């Protein structure tokens, strides 16, 4: 690569200009595809987080009920 001499602009010859343009178009389409896939992953992750949160609440309910049952089983005079 050469530096500009005497302030004149220096150009680099591009042999396969059209091919480069085609590859650039392909890269653009791939980037758009990746963006769409990331959007899908994001929605799936949100759904997964919501499901995990619901699962957590269910486990908490189960834990509370088990504790109640345990209390009733070890203090029969109060529960029965």
């Amino acid at each position, binding site marked *: 690569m050469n530096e500009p001499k005497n302030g004149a602009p220096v*150009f680099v010859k591009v042999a396969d200009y059209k091919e480069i343009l085609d590859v650039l178009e392909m890269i653009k389409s791939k980037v758009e595809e990746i963006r769409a896939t990331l959007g899908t992953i994001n929605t799936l992750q949100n759904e997964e987080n919501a499901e995990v949160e619901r699962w957590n609440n269910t486990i908490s309910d189960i834990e509370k009920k088990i504790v109640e049952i345990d209390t009733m089983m070890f203090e029969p005079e109060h529960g029965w």
Partner: protein
Amino acid sequence: MGFLKFLKREKKKEDLYELDLPPEPPMLSDFEKNAPSSGVLDNPPEPDFNFSEAGEKSTNQEESTEFPAFPEIEEDPLSIPTISAPAEIQNNVPDEHEFGQLNIAEEEEPPKELEEHEESEEEHKPEDSHLQAEEKPVKFQMQRKVPIGKIIYIRVDEFKMMAASINAIRNDLKISEEDLAKLESDKHAKDKSFDKVKSCLDDLQKKLIFIDKTLFKGE
């Protein structure tokens, strides 16, 4: 003193009041007499050309739809002289290795055209497109002029910028690949923990069923 006569004539022309009066216009009645009838104007008579040879040929061509036979021209490629560029132009053709060192003032047109085209596209963008650009950071709806059959040149500073951008993209791709590998390992770990939770829940259900059966056996 005869050579001074032309001066006397010019003096007469300059004086407009001494000019001769023009002839009177013709009367309207003369126009009505000489005016053609309306039917003649609607269907003007066709000129009668009496070309004996040409007329005969045209009638013959109308009757026969075949093209007239033309004499065949013998193509002799040797008779056409090859045109070569002048010696000055041939000597000034740059080699592929020397194009970077040349002062290419005339070759500035293709990049200028591209720059002007891109600038004009930016100028003609509507105001709403700016709002859309906030939602989508990169917009790939560009139309380019692709010069066909021309040698393309790119400015060196733009080439450097493009090379730097390509290096940055390469680094980003490496980072993305590493992140993807990490995400895959996280996904495997998550799948394992999901399986573990599922097995725990199955055990819990079995034990609850056992307790239920034991408590409510109904002996």
